[in-house]
């Protein structure tokens, strides 16, 4: 429940009762209104900029998502263009965030709370970017699934065309043999039907081979596309992992420092030990000499 108006009423009445000059009262009120226009540090401005960019990216993805995902809405070239744009945007945003982080480390003489706050702001930005990126990845995987289905359908069609070719060739052969029946024609005319038959058989064989090669190429292309998407997805996971590894690394570094300190302590302890040994030996020797002396003295 909003008690702000009540608060301001109390402030004004209190100010008036304690006799604050009118000028200061006005300054108070104007300062409150103008507070939002006060200068902010460079870091906050930069962070707000990046946040605006990320929002723009999210809006862009949202806008084009319908066209992108649904089949038949836009051509492959357009989809590739969208992907490229999104990729470029994501890269610039990541660069900006990295620069923000670097600036935090570079600026000296900041108290720990400010440092923590700035790191937190950068983390918020990177998390938002990551969310947008994974949403886009999901769209992309949908697109590739559709492509896969299309490929499968297209492959099914040529196989349906193949059987009709079978009756075609006996027909050719028949016409060829019918042509071969003109044996009493010129030798050239006789050669041509046979040649034609052989040629046609060769053609058919070649065509089939080419078709196979074409299929293989199409398959390879789709596999490559899938690999690219997978690579992208895996790389995001790997990036995550690398961050975790970095954390582990810093912890390990801290641990090594501890180990080094432990080593120093150990060497000191060894030194003390050895010195203690010397003292012990010296004491024993002195004691034995003392004993001998006493013996000699008393005899």
């Amino acid at each position, binding site marked *: *429940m909003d*008690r702000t108006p009540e608060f301001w009423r109390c402030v004004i009445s209190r100010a008036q009762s*304690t006799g604050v000059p009118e000028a200061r009262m006005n300054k108070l009120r104007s300062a409150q209104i103008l507070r939002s226009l006060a200068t902010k540090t460079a870091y906050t401005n930069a962070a707000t900029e990046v946040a605006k960019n990320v929002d723009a990216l999210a809006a862009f993805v949202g806008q084009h998502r319908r066209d992108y995902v649904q089949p038949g809405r836009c051509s492959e070239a357009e989809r590739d263009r969208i992907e490229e744009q999104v990729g470029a945007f994501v890269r610039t945003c990541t660069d900006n965030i990295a620069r923000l982080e670097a600036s935090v480390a570079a600026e000296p003489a900041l*108290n720990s709370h*400010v440092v923590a*706050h700035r790191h937190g*702001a950068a983390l*918020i930005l990177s998390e938002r970017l990551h969310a947008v990126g994974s949403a886009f990845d999901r769209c992309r995987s949908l697109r590739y699934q559709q492509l896969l289905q299309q490929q499968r359908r297209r492959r099914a069609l040529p196989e349906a065309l193949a059987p009709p070719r079978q009756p075609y060739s006996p027909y050719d052969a028949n016409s060829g043999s019918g042509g071969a029946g003109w044996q009493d024609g010129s030798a050239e005319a006789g050669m041509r039907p046979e040649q034609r038959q052989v040629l046609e058989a060769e053609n058919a064989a070649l065509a089939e081979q080419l078709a196979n090669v074409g299929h293989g190429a199409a398959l390879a292309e789709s596999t490559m596309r*899938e690999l690219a998407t997978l690579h992208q997805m895996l790389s995001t996971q790997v990036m995550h992992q690398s961050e975790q590894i970095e954390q582990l690394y810093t912890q390990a570094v801290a641990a090594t420092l501890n180990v080094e300190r432990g080593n120093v302590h150990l060497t000191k302890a060894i030194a003390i030990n050895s010195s203690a040994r010397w003292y012990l030996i010296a004491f024993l020797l002195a004691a034995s000499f003392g004993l001998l002396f006493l013996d000699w003295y008393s005899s």
Partner: protein
Amino acid sequence: MVLNIRQKQIDALVRLLHLNAPPSALKSGGDDEAYKVLVLDRVTKDIVAPLLRINDLRKHGVTLHLMLEAERQAIPDVPAVYFVRGGEEGVERAVADAAAGLYDSLHLNFTPCLPAPLMQKLAAGMVAASCAQRVGKVYDQYLSFIALEAGLFSLGLHNTYLQLNDPAARDTQISAASEAVVDGLLSVLITLGIVPIIRCPKGGAAEHIARQLDARLREHLGARQNLFSEAAPALAASLARPLLCLFDRNFELSVMLQHTWTYKPLVHDVLGLSLNRVTVEEAPPAAAAAVGLAPQAPVKKHFEVGEGDFFWDANGRNQFPKVAEDVDAQLTKYKQAVEELNRQTGAGIDPNGDPGAAGQANTRGLMAAVSSLPELTERKRCIDKHTNLATHLLQAIKARGLDLFYNLEEDMLSGKADAAAMLRLIQGDKGTLADKLRLALVQLLTCEALPSEPEFDRTTSALAAAGADPAALAYVRRMRRLNLTGRAAAAAGEPGGGGGGVAGGGGGALAGLAGQSHLLSWADKTFGQGLSSLTKGVKVLLAGEQQAAVTVAMEALMDGKPSPELDSFAIFDPKAAPGRPARGGGPFREALVFMIGGGNYLEYESLATWAGRATPPKSVVYGATDLLSGEQILAQLAELGRRSGV
């Protein structure tokens, strides 16, 4: 409409974090107030902790959360959201921070509300330091309660039972305690946006608090019309008002002291569940000790349970053996899923198959794998956590012989008390002193007639021989004698005793409650490896169906049919004109049950089961001043015994 108190509190908190901007003005990220710092104090930290984790806070733009009392450093151009209790300390620190210019602007949110004198003090302080322009907004939040689950809340007020029943307490202490309870209840009602009809047993703390609550609600309804209507406009016009029932802890004390056998109450009782978080101590792994490193102190591990944990939700009400089986089943399901995934992603390629098709299938499988992998790892983590918890529970059960106590108490609750068996258990060496005391207390509270002097003396001497402190026993005996508690006391108790057996007999298999129990012997496994449960023998029969007295009372109250025992319940209706006798209201579909002095997961479970099974399904929200385990209430009873000098 189902009352979901946790969601409502989360919504209120999110609104708070977005600086209470009107919902239409919510922009994400591009505006100036995007990155804020959250300042909490101890009380509000407990409120926020079960609801929002640090990542959730970050999603709403909070970069840092700091404690009010700690030394805080200046962060120049950042708005700070203060969410603190409306007391002296909060006001003073806010003024100090504003004067020191720690943050750019302060948005103050007080819970439950900021009383007028403190508002004056705040204004005075700001004017004196001439920094009033730093204050962005001042809000009353009315969020002084801890919502643990959708239908469970606690007020976080410790030792209320002790304070309210203390014979040596001064009036000021008692009124302070009841004020706190009323504040908390008011917050709950405002957050839910409902004005219920209040019923409570006559006489005692419940009626006193109900009266105060009624007065406060009338005040709010009269003064600010929009407090209840802005929260849920639809509700204000709805015809079915919910029912709020306040009960004193003495209504039924035995349910707090009982040993339990279902999962959630077991975790709460044995492992200590607080704010949806369990802390267990784990002995260091044996391997480390064998290598010759210095013996390490037992490591404390924290586990979060609560909403969103699929296993917790599904198994909260199941008995322990079934929980064990379920963990096993989930683990096998997970292993199958992982194998399936491995197969899909080409771990087993058929060498004679068509390479093109295999390649395609592989990549498809890989894509499916990459997308479903995070979900699977999350599932595995959850299963591991519950395996861990179950193992610890099992160790505790075996060490303390809790199943013996449980069976004996079940016998007592159904009236077949066996004094000899109880004495044998007390003199035996299974179970801690607290367990034995609880057994004796349950017997005392549930036997039909008060035990005779010699029997009682035998019990006390057995306990004293075992080393326990009989103060609590003496206190409870005195209370029973004065008819202030126990089965013989509440009017709804007697018919409840018989009715409970019949009404709860929906399962049918309740005739023989004791059943046999064999200890579950598990192979000791290290964390993370599967469980192979060698559950020998018959598990305990469906014994947990004994209904708590509260459930029976609620059943009668929600039906709304006038009956002699219900007339002993007072009615308050804040919306009715003062002086007009309030009507009881017809059958209710929604209710809030509140226990003054302490509550417990067992009662909550009993209520929830009944509400789920009733036709038409009713929605019941359960709350208490604090969720106490058996040992905690035992300590309070012992303290009371000492203070009343019995």
